[in-house]
């Protein structure tokens, strides 16, 4: 009896992870055990919660509200429209949060770039931030992909090594801070994924004509790979679902390309002092491949370093006649635009390098008029009418 190709294809339609997958062991058991032994306080994720699936089948709790925004150096410093969009969307959905001044950088960029630090310093920085969030009563939401991946690493090291916990405890003692681990380490893109339907419900701009390629951040899904969102409805559960899930919920067409799993080339140290590496990688392996194979209107990603690398590397490459020239932004800015956000007052696209104007036109946004409005606001600031642009000003 012939075996039709159809039978083989049918067999491959649907993947289900069986119950015997050893990697479904859940780190939460140890987390809570250590709390019972008095080693630390586990800050519980506050209700209301959206449960989401992670790679090996464990459920992760993503809180909707009462969030402590753990900000990103690169976002706030160089692409502030990214952070602004995260706040703006959260406000539009009506969820309370705090934007702390008592927050340090996670210092992971420095750590991965220069190694002028050590496991104890990195863990102490993490715990200090977590303790501060706990004391404020708000639950940490991590903005940067590197911070997120690094904190997951730190959590693993702390779970595994009692001597490290002891070292950090001593330092927290000197700072008069409790030892705290959050029940979950939540990345902002997980919050966007968890709330994608609520975001889509508030969509006012039509994205059905927009084609996007997605670049997932290495530090989001390659570090501690079990703790990353996977969804059977997105890539059949075989690739991480963040960003793509949001883009698709907004009606955009997400297109594939052959270097999806490749690093963007950020390199931590390289992007600051050896950018020929970063630029080569970003353009030759990512942007050019995306353009050749998918021809997207926009490149979406969810990490500070990736946005910076993919956006800023294109200018010099253009001078060499390479096939580049596609705007890059976070899915936060993309979602904000879908919800009617001002491209300059909220998404702050004037801080970006690759030309985003054709994209805005496709979205039905009159960017010239928008720029003029923004210029008006700047004039008001210059004239001393007000000190700062506020949330009320940006709509």
């Amino acid at each position, binding site marked *: 009896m*012939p*075996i039709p*190709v159809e039978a*083989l*294809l049918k*067999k*491959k*339609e*649907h*993947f*289900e*992870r*069986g119950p*015997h*997958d*050893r*990697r479904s062991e859940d780190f939460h058991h140890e987390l809570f055990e250590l709390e019972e032994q008095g080693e630390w306080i586990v800050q519980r994720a506050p209700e209301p919660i959206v449960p989401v699936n992670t790679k090996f089948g464990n459920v992760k709790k993503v809180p909707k509200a009462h969030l402590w925004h753990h900000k990103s150096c690169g976002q706030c410093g160089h692409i502030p429209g990214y952070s602004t969009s995260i706040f703006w969307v959260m406000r539009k959905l009506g969820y309370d949060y705090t934007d702390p001044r008592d927050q340090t950088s996670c210092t992971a960029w420095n750590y991965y770039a220069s190694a002028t630090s050590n496991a104890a310093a990195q863990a102490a920085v993490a715990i200090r931030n977590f303790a501060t969030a706990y004391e404020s009563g708000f639950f940490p939401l991590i903005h940067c992909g590197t911070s997120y991946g690094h904190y997951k690493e730190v959590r693993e090291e702390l779970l595994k090594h009692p001597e490290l916990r002891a070292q950090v405890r001593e330092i927290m003692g000197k700072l008069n801070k409790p030892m705290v681990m959050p029940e979950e380490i939540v990345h902002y893109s997980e919050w966007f994924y968890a709330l994608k339907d609520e975001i889509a419900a508030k969509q006012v701009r039509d994205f059905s004509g927009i084609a996007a390629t997605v670049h997932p951040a290495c530090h989001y899904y390659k570090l501690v790979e079990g703790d990353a969102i996977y969804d059977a409805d997105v*890539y*059949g*559960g*075989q*690739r991480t679902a963040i960003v793509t899930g949001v883009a698709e919920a907004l009606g955009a067409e997400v297109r*594939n390309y*052959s*270097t*999806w*799993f490749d690093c963007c080339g950020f390199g931590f140290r390289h992007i600051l002092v050896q950018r020929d590496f970063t630029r080569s990688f970003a353009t030759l392996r990512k942007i050019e491949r995306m353009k050749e*194979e998918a021809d997207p209107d926009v490149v979406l990603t969810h990490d500070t370093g990736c946005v910076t690398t993919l956006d800023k590397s294109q200018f010099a490459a253009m001078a060499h006649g390479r096939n580049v020239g596609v705007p890059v932004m976070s899915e936060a800015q993309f979602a904000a635009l879908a919800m009617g956000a001002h491209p300059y007052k909220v998404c702050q696209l004037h801080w970006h390098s690759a030309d985003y104007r054709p994209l805005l036109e496709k979205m039905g946004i009159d960017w010239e008029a928008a720029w003029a409005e923004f210029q008006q606001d700047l004039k008001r600031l210059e004239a001393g009418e007000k000190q700062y642009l506020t949330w009320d000003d940006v709509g």
Partner: protein
Amino acid sequence: MSETIAVIGGGPAGLEAARGLAELGGSVVLIEKENFLGGTPIRENYAALTPHLESAEVAMGRMIDAVREQPGVEVLLEHTVTACAGDAPEFRLTVSGPGGEREIECGGIIVATGFEHFDPGRETQMYGYYEHPDVLALQDLEAMLKEHNVVRPSTGLPPERICFVQCVGSRDRQIGNEYCSKVCCGVASKEAIEVRQQLPDCKVFIFYIDMRMYGYWENQIYWPAQEEYHVQYVKGIITEVLKKGDKLLVRGEDTTMGRPMEVPMDMVILSVGMEPSAGTRSMSRILGIEPNKYGFIEVLNPPLDTVSTSRRGIWACGASLGPADLEDCASSGAAAAMKALAFVRRKTVAVG
């Protein structure tokens, strides 16, 4: 007390055990969940067996006929074991089948419930089995080879470039299958030879970590694959398979040349390893015999006793014990039969 021995599973190992028992004058009940005998080679439509390339259907047919010819064997197709009561030598197995439930009294039990192929969706590397129609597993290609119809599922046309990726689901600390599945290097090389025979214009590659060619396989399969059929072996395993245009791009390192490589293929065949079958897992539970940490049946005194389980009166054979080739199945099936028969006839049974 019954001297009947229940053999659970009608694949290569179970068939050898059943036939051996019956030839020695024993009384056997052979319980098989499918509606055919022959086990995985028949269920998964294997084309030819490694290493001699004899047709699987013909070879298994011989084993099945040999069992059927024996007067002392009762074959229960479409039956599964649902409960076990009592202790050796007085077990009472409850089996369930199309006619309903039935109790079987037996003095000894032989588990021969075999393995199942590793599901590539659980693989650490990004092979895209569930994404790309042209990424298949070893048993998928067997089915095509049997029909002499090796084509790209995406186009229906024969491939020009096909590659095998070894160790999928095996030898991986992260997945937890910290063992070698033993046969995949031989089977992949055999399939490579068959592809070259059926499609002489197709280039065939095998990407590997180590080539495991035990004993005579070295010159029965490995040397001819390279020397007669020009299969290209590359020491450097693949990590990613992505679509580019209408081809698949496979990404690895050519380690002996020391450089990353990215090459286009028409089809990628994943050499998936062995895992305990659902039947092996449930028998371990129902019969109360200890599994090892991978879920295969634990053997009491390896390496010299290959079949005694943690429970007196119960033996296991074939791939229910772990990765096994056909010679292992035949040998351990026979060993289990010998020990089981000796046991029920009240002879002393040496253990290890």
